[in-house]
């Protein structure tokens, strides 16, 4: 059975937000280098999709592509998504415990309260209307709650669409799928491939980054929509029988089997 293809797109989010472009800030990977993908680890990936067909011409192996976006300089996507929410809750719990201990001690000093405020950290509001993130605590890149808006962990980039020649010519059929896998946080983009028309087909990935912005004295997440490109190289080769090299034949049993 052919494997599913994982295409990982790594975004240098800080520089992409600064230049408002993914050019020079995007690195593409897949796990098919050994079968002929070119440019793995660079901005110019050509993903090989080695299709196969049966001798009657029908498509044999189903090739499936999966896309996983990641942000350079953020907590890696291998850390489960609900981790951030868990960390935020844990920080709140500790703060509540500390608050309780202040009451028991008969009040707190100003310094202690300030420390507590920092522990609780800032919250960022989602923008009114439209897509946005739910109100969350800020975490820094080591997973701790932070009150500093300069060192926050970038939220995972979100793929919002896949378009381009590979889609319009119906080489790939991309769609969002639900998954219980925590790494994909419930949604991921995947596509089946029609490998009957060999060739090189470019496609465009639409990505939404989120930037923390200060407006009217509060922190707000704003989304920034950008695009980046890659290509698929479709090949197609005939399936052959592993024993005969051609069609179905008799199993090549020896006249006398080996002693068991």
């Amino acid at each position, binding site marked *: 059975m052919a494997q599913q293809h994982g295409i990982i797109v790594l975004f240098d989010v800080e520089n992409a937000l600064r230049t408002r472009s993914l050019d020079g800030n995007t690195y593409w990977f897949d796990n098919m280098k050994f079968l002929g993908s070119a440019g793995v680890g660079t901005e110019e990936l050509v993903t090989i999709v080695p299709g196969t067909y049966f*001798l009657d011409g029908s498509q044999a192996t189903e090739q499936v592509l999966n896309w996983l976006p990641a942000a350079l300089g953020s907590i890696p996507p291998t850390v489960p998504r609900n981790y951030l929410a868990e960390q935020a809750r844990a920080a709140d719990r500790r703060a509540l415990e500390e608050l309780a201990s202040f009451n028991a001690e008969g009040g707190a000093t100003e310094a202690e309260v300030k420390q507590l405020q920092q522990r609780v950290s800032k919250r960022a509001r989602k923008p009114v209307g439209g897509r946005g993130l739910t109100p969350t605590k800020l975490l820094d890149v080591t997973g701790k709650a932070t009150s500093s808006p300069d060192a926050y962990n970038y939220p995972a980039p979100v793929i919002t669409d896949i378009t381009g020649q590979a889609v319009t010519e119906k080489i790939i059929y991309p769609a969002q799928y639900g998954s219980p896998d925590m790494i994909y946080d419930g949604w991921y983009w995947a596509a089946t491939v029609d490998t009957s028309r060999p060739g090189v087909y470019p496609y465009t990935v639409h990505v939404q980054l989120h930037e923390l912005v200060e407006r009217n004295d509060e922190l707000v997440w704003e989304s920034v929509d950008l695009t980046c490109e890659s290509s698929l190289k479709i090949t197609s080769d005939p399936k052959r029988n592993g024993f005969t090299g051609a069609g179905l034949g008799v199993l090549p049993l020896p006249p006398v089997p080996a002693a*068991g």
Partner: protein
Amino acid sequence: MKDRVSIVVMVDAVGALSERTLHNGNLSLVDDSTAGSQHQGTPDLVTAVVPGQVVQWTPIHIDVQTPVEIQAIEFLSGLPVPSPADLAAAYPAESAVPVPGAVPPYPVEPAVLAAGAVPTGVDATSSNGHENHDLLVWEGVVPYDMTPGVPYRYRLSLKLHEGPNSVLHIDSPALLRV
């Protein structure tokens, strides 16, 4: 009697590559024969077959993004293997195509090919300049001269990705004519 018996080869590729063995639970063989196979779910599977059935081996991997393909299936002989010259004299092949590294070719029924397709002597795994073992279909017909009640063991070689550590094999599974 079923027309077809399917043997599913399930591999934990990362475990197999890390430990460099298909044992230790990294390989599980399961078939759907109704004639009484033994040791289902282990590398020691003995698949019960009947002459005329088509037996097909299909690899499946636990982690869908790691590559597992069958590199070879070679039945182990209790006799010294005859040279290709001896075989050619004994079994004049009409349309047999040599498969590199496998048991010497046996006579085959002529394949039904799509119009215009020609069986060539080219390596059947060649794809775009790379070896792609996904191109191979591992199936064959159980012959009528198979001795009943005797397990015919085979070496199953699996290719996990590529490179010096990528091919692992076991010699324990077998087919048994009931």
